[in-house]
């Protein structure tokens, strides 16, 4: 069994327990051991691109460094955590000034310079397990279910740092959907923003964005939509005004692996 450092993040401990629970159960069934670092902190939710911001980057560096010290790759599952950690890792390996200030603050036994490999859980399925292998482990294929994969912005962009997939024509989630026996639905809004945190101060903008995403998926005949992001799930469910069901990708993964009852919505 291969072991990875696993970073759940604050929301997976609270409002997004399903994203976490089924990620862990499915990993175990796939022969992947996930171990949390001892004292992880919230990633902050959004990466601060400003070069003169240091404090907001420390939490992600601590997480990256604890994986480095354990000699393991790091796995994330929440799109936002993944984005913050990936961008931090990218910048610290290129921006000497930032790396110097961060390391002067943290005083680690050995300075951190971007050594850790970071996988989103979907990348782990593709690059470590392999979608072919995953397909073999599926006991309850989601035959005939038309699933719209929602990437949003955080999984793909900025693509130089995230480097998960082609940012304009991604396939990783569609390949995942095929591996669990369902049919992917391609729709125009799959890599456009849901509105994100704007829901806190402008519900109408969040409604407009998330409504556009759901409308686009429904027009293409989707039965359901999947996401890796708790805030996307919130906007798409609460602000879009659409009745299209929305699930975390880990829920349908667990269902296909026979670890979870089907959704009856």
């Amino acid at each position: 069994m291969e072991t990875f450092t696993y970073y759940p993040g604050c929301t997976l401990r609270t409002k997004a327990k399903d994203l976490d629970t089924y990620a862990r159960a499915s990993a175990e069934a796939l022969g992947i051991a996930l171990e949390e670092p001892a004292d992880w902190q919230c990633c902050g939710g959004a990466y601060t691109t400003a070069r003169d911001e240091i404090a907001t980057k420390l939490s992600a560096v601590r997480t990256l460094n604890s994986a480095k010290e354990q000699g393991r790759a790091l796995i994330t599952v929440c799109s936002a955590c993944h984005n913050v950690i990936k961008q931090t890792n990218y910048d610290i390996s290129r921006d000497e000034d930032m790396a110097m200030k961060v390391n002067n603050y943290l005083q680690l036994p050995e300075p951190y310079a971007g050594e850790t490999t970071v996988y989103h859980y979907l990348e782990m399925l593709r690059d470590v397990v392999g979608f072919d292998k995953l397909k073999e482990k599926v006991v309850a294929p989601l035959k005939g279910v038309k699933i719209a994969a929602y990437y949003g912005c955080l999984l793909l962009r900025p693509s130089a740092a995230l480097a998960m997939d082609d940012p304009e024509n991604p396939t990783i989630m569609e390949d995942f959907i095929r591996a669990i026996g369902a049919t992917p639905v391609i729709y125009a809004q799959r890599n456009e923003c849901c509105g994100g945190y704007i829901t806190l101060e402008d519900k109408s903008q969040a409604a407009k964005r998330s409504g556009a995403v759901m409308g686009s998926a429904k027009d293409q005949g989707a039965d359901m939509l999947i996401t890796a992001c708790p805030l996307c799930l919130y906007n798409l469910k609460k602000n879009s005004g659409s009745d299209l069901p929305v699930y975390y990708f880990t829920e349908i993964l667990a269902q296909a692996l026979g670890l979870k009852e089907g959704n009856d919505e």
Partner: protein
Amino acid sequence: MNKNLKEQVLRSSGVNVLKCMRCGKCSGTCPSYDEMEYHPHQFVYMVEKGDIETLMKSESIYKCLTCFACVDRCPRGVQPAKVVEAVRLAAVRQQDGNRLSADQIPSLLDEDLPQQAIVTAMRKYAK
């Protein structure tokens, strides 16, 4: 034009605004276009001109969703979102510049709202 503010925004963003060819693609792809008084390409242009205070006073700095669409789709690699962020930071870092305070949070919550939304908003709107 405020030279110090311009210098701060240029350094903080790390963006070379002179690379912009004013094609407007960033604004064309921006999901917040309709909500913004100044659009991403205008941020780049106004920072070049040193007109930072106008941007700092505009609601537009709080309308950017940080979706990085403008960053990925700019044909010149300008990274307009980094300019928007640097201007927003220049505003919220000022004395009494916070847009959101911790005591306002409880009134914004509902039972399904993920923590992620709150921590993100605190990063965007406060220092």
